[in-house]
């Protein structure tokens, strides 16, 4: 388990450090590509994706750097996409909100809230239709869970008994709007989900082990034909909704003030655990140094990569 946890820590660290470096680069350079950082939520992506096989599929949303990297994605091609380069995941046409790499089972991310949920359900529909023993995961936020199409999808997934796992990353805010401003006091995600006949599990999204353990059980059940599930992970989004900044000064955060977020931070938690199991500080410093070097290299690689040629504007409209 120690080796597994160490690997998980490194995967989470790689996401954290890559985004820190990307944020820095965004601030120092005029990068014209909309971006939403995942910093804080890494335990969810890594915990869920560690429970999957390569052939299992993942789809994401506007905040999907972490989902993509956790599924085994290529950091260089991701950063190139963010910087609009020809060698990016979508040849520069998608940007940060459109991660895709079918070679690792990441079949797309889309930023219209809720839109990816039925799409991923369709992927699961295909898996069931073709008798594949694999599942599809969609990541969505608490905001997207308020979209009507999500409820339609829960019904469809239950009706057709699809191998579909919806991971709700509840980071308490939709942009800057609090849950209590968007839902009645009686709102109950578990009742909604189970009311459709879909299994519901709640996890501490800041705790890798909790997410991983629960996701593993769900995935195993699903592969034995037990049907769709929702895994709601309560977590914290450290940074602003869509800027390379910390925005605590905006004053909208009540429950998750900076001190609390840092105390509950998923990386910190896992680090403490690993320290107790004998990993020393020098090793942690070394791991971070290596991860940071890889991130800086990926950014440099992207920055010197060519932009797509002008004629690409008119390409790929149809297959």
């Amino acid at each position, binding site marked *: 388990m120690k080796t597994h946890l160490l690997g998980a820590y490194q995967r989470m660290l790689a996401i954290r450090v890559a985004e820190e470096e990307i944020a820095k680069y965004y601030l120092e350079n005029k990068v014209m590509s909309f971006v939403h950082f995942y910093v804080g939520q890494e335990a969810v992506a890594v915990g869920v994706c560690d429970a999957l096989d390569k052939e299992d599929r993942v789809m994401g949303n506007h905040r999907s750097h972490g989902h993509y990297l956790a599924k085994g994605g290529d950091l260089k091609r991701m950063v190139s996409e963010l910087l609009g380069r020809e060698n990016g995941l979508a040849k520069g046409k*998608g940007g940060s909100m459109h991660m895709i790499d079918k070679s690792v089972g990441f079949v797309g991310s889309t930023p219209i809230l809720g839109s990816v949920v039925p799409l991923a359900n369709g992927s699961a529909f295909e898996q069931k239709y073709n008798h594949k023993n694999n599942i599809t995961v969609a990541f969505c936020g608490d905001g997207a869970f308020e979209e009507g199409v999500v409820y339609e999808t829960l019904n469809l997934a239950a009706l057709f008994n699809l191998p579909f796992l919806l991971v709700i990353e509840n980071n308490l805010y939709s942009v800057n709007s609090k849950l209590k401003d968007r839902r009645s006091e009686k709102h109950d995600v578990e009742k909604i989900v189970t009311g459709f006949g879909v299994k519901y599990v709640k996890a501490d999204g800041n705790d890798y082990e909790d997410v991983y353990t629960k996701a593993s059980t769900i995935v195993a059940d699903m592969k034995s034909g037990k049907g769709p599930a929702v895994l709601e992970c309560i977590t914290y989004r450290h940074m602003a909704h869509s800027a390379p900044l910390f925005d605590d000064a905006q004053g909208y955060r009540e429950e998750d003030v900076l001190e609390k977020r840092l105390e509950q931070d998923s990386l910190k938690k896992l680090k403490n655990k690993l320290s107790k199991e004998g990993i020393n500080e020098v090793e942690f410093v070394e791991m971070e140094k290596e991860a940071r070097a890889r991130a800086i290299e990926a950014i440099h690689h992207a920055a010197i990569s060519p932009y797509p040629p002008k004629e690409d504007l008119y390409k*790929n*409209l*149809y297959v």
Partner: protein
Amino acid sequence: MSERIIKYTEALKEATEQMMEVDSSIVVLGLGVSYKNGADGTTAGLKVKYPERIFDVPVSEAGVTSMAVGAAINGLHPVVHHGRVEFALLAADAMFTQAAKWNYMFGGSNPVPIVIRINVGRQWGNGPQHTQALYSLFGNVPGLKVVIPSSPYMAKGLLVSALKEQSPVIILEPRWLFNLKQHVPLEVFSVELHRAHVINSGKDITVISYGDGLQAAREALELVGDHVSVELIDLVSINPIDYQTIITSVIKTGAVLTVDTTNESFNVGSEIIGKIVQEASVTLTRKPMSLSCPNVPCPTSTSLTESYYPTRVDIANSILKAFDKPLLDTNLTFEELHMAPAKTI
């Protein structure tokens, strides 16, 4: 040997059935598609033949259509049926924002082989929320292929092509044409998706239409007779539009009339006329003309709808007037005005 004559709806069913025989990735989803006479007969009997591939679905247009898009991007070739365009609008994200953009926004090599069949347009007594056509909406979104079959032959050939296509295809099916009959070959055949058809050659004026408007224009040719030589074009596809066929014709005739069966503003005809008048190689000898429905919703009362859609007489008189020929003074019967044609063409 007697010709095999079938209805528009039967042609759609035949194309689906024959393509399902050769392509196991084709599945059909839609409200009531599993009924004995499902989707106006266009899926009749298919549930019995393919029990695992025909899916009746909950009343969840967004969830179902997006699910089908998700299945398509992972290799299935779903056909989604919407019984009215107003219901399809609930799936706008699936069609316009997801399917249409998918291949482009991911830099190519990301096909979305899906066919979305949508029932559109006029039908007696159906009123403002059941009779919209909304062609221009579908023409306005790059990445979709949008066709409007004008006859049983076209219905079969276009659906076969759509089911061989790797880009998303929207088929807008005017229900006004559902009882139209025609000789349609039994064997599988394709009609190119994005090619307009010159269905009558002429030298004086180019008339451009599609769907049920084309049927009225076809009938108008008989009324115009030898007075004016009309070149009639079936547009077939409104996305993309085959301007080459149009411009070639208008260079020859120097005159154009477009016929839409949708509201006047932002319609297909205005779009085409706009392009024609900007085309350097075209010299128009007459002002371009267009016919369409007024800019109000289609009401229910037959006393109001009798002047809502351009008729064959309206089309013939527009042409005759432009060429200073005597106008027709024909009154259409109640049946002709309000009942869908069931004739053989």
